């Protein structure tokens, strides 16, 4: 158990790279003192007219999530950037966000007390969770509101609206998580557009939440 103020120095690093690099990222990060990480497979959007004509609209990506203290994250990110060259276009994206709660690893839950660091926040991470098949619509809605694109993650879950049973198995419908990194100024319009198009305000249609992003490499305007 750690005191609350210490926990605030923990951050989560997200790394989004092309499929197959995830394990290497984790290995490199461990060299810098990161204790471990979680990986999952996702699909990223491609905006290329020729490829869209051929119906190739997404490619496999790997997402790595790693949690460690602020000092280690900074060191790890700089090291990763050196090794994987995220500062070049199309080499992947890395960003960290502060944690508002951290459970099960090395501390208890903490309350976010609205305090932010000195650094100006440039980007925000919008996370949208919807029923499977709607992620494309989320991306489209976001793009209408000025977003550059997004990353789709396959997931599964059930809320209060899903209690189906099938033979001897419970049905847990598939979900899709959409992660959109947006400029702070665009966050509000993007969220509103998604709410409107996906009818998020009606029960059982999905969830949206937003995290602040501290440092990014690899985003090009």
């Amino acid at each position, binding site marked *: 158990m750690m005191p609350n103020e210490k926990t605030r120095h923990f951050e989560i690093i997200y790394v989004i790279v092309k499929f197959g690099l995830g394990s290497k990222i984790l290995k490199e990060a461990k060299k810098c003192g990161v204790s*471990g990480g979680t990986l999952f497979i996702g699909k990223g959007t491609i905006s290329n007219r*020729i490829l869209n004509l*051929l119906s190739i609209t997404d490619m496999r990506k790997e997402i790595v999530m790693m949690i460690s203290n602020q000092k280690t994250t900074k060191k790890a990110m700089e090291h990763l950037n050196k090794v994987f060259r995220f500062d070049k276009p199309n080499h992947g994206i890395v960003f960290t966000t502060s944690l508002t709660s951290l459970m099960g690893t090395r501390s208890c839950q903490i309350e976010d007390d609205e305090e932010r660091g000195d650094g100006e926040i440039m980007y925000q991470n919008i996370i949208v969770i919807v029923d499977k098949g709607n992620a494309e619509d989320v991306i489209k809605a976001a793009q209408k509101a000025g977003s550059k694109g997004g990353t789709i993650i396959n997931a599964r879950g059930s809320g209060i609206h899903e209690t189906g049973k099938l033979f001897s198995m419970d049905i847990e419908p598939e979900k899709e998580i959409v992660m959109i990194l947006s400029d702070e100024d665009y966050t509000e319009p993007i969220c509103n557009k998604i709410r409107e198009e996906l009818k998020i305000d009606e029960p059982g249609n999905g969830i949206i939440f937003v995290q602040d992003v501290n440092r990014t490499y690899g985003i090009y305007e």
Partner: protein
Amino acid sequence: MNILWSKLLEVVYAVLPITIIVIILQFTLTSLDITLIIRFLIGAVLIIIGLSIFLLGVDIGITPIGTQLGKTIAKSNRLWIVILAGLCLGFIISIAEPDLHILAGQVEMVTSSAIAKLTLVIVVSVGIAVMLSIGLIRIVHNIPLFKILTIIYGAVFLLALFTSPQFLAIAFDASGATTGAMTVPFILALSIGISVMKKDSKASEKDSFGLVAIASVGAIITVMLMSIFSRQSELASGTMEEEHHGTEALFMPFLQEFGHIAEEVILALSPIVILFFIFQKLSFKLSRESVRKIVTGLVFTFIGLVLFLVGVNAGFMELGTELGYSIASLEHKAYIVIVGLILGIVTILAEPAVYVLTNQIEDVTSGYVKRKVVLFTLAIGVGIAVALSMLRILIPGLQLWHYILPGYLIAIALMYITPKLFVGIAFDSGGVASGPMTATFILAFTHGAAEAIEGADVIVDGFGMIAMVALTPLITLQILGLIFKLKSKKGGMKT
């Protein structure tokens, strides 16, 4: 455009090994006709292009249809719909499989029409249909795979006691032939589509695999039953007619193959296309954009598979025969076994369905079971299978069941100690390994070798090679599972 290059590069790495090995052999052990080598190289280029397009097509065409169908079946929540769907799907997919028609044609020729081609095709399709149904029931009712497999392989052993040796080989080969390049991705997607609905993620992962395995055993059982009921004990030894195109022709063989291969692929694709449009009208109701994507995917699948098969049949087949013949004619008989081992290893890398399976494994396990590891294990297994087949040609006393019986006993015993996920993966990969690349190139190589060896019977030794290729991965991949188990004992997966 990065994505296209990375796909192409992936495929180049898959086809390059076999090309390099053949060229090395050409400069060391053999000296084949130069037109054959040039045709082989043209074939390799066609295979690279075809395989890339085919894999893209499977990704955006075949797999989505399979998964959608699987979900629709599971959502119906009625047992009779599951059974009916299994029967219909199994029958029409199997009856449209070109590899099965080729095998049935060969059997008809060998048995001097004692077994009509159509009879065998229908018998096999019925077997696949029944077992696919049982496989679907297994998934929705959470019956463990190893129990089902133990029971059905027990039945296979019992029936094998009453079946003549030649029929034994035909039965096992038929099961390998029905799981072709098109059916495996489709059946895999189907089972993943159903399994994905499960709440228990462990069970969902385990049950994603094993459907191909259960379905392909259906062919073995029905062919054996046919042999017992028709009392065909001795088959008249016919002859295999080798088609000889003039070796001087460089491009003609490619053009000759093109027409009938296009027909075959259309035939194999048709059930999937028809099913898709029927269900799109009735239940999928996908958006126009999604339908456009899937149709594009199907077109890719068609073009890719045609190019791939033309490359294999016109570029690789004849060279395989000549290669087998010339190496088996060498003074040292050890060469043929070693070359068989190496060819087995490099050929499997270029097998289309293997890519689909390994990708699905990665997707289902979120990258826990890496593609390269599975590929490597599979390649070792197939290499051993081909080497053993060569031994069987060299040593007249060795018979197919001398391999098959202990092999399957080991495979079944391993099921009880290996992680359950790997049981499904291993038994599915048996069907995957016996695809078009193996069935043409390696089979031609085996025939060539059998022709060169005194006292080897082209028919008896020719049939049964596919059965071996389908068997060895069951053992090697389950051993891989055991290794995974030992390695991940400390704390399990990374979090």
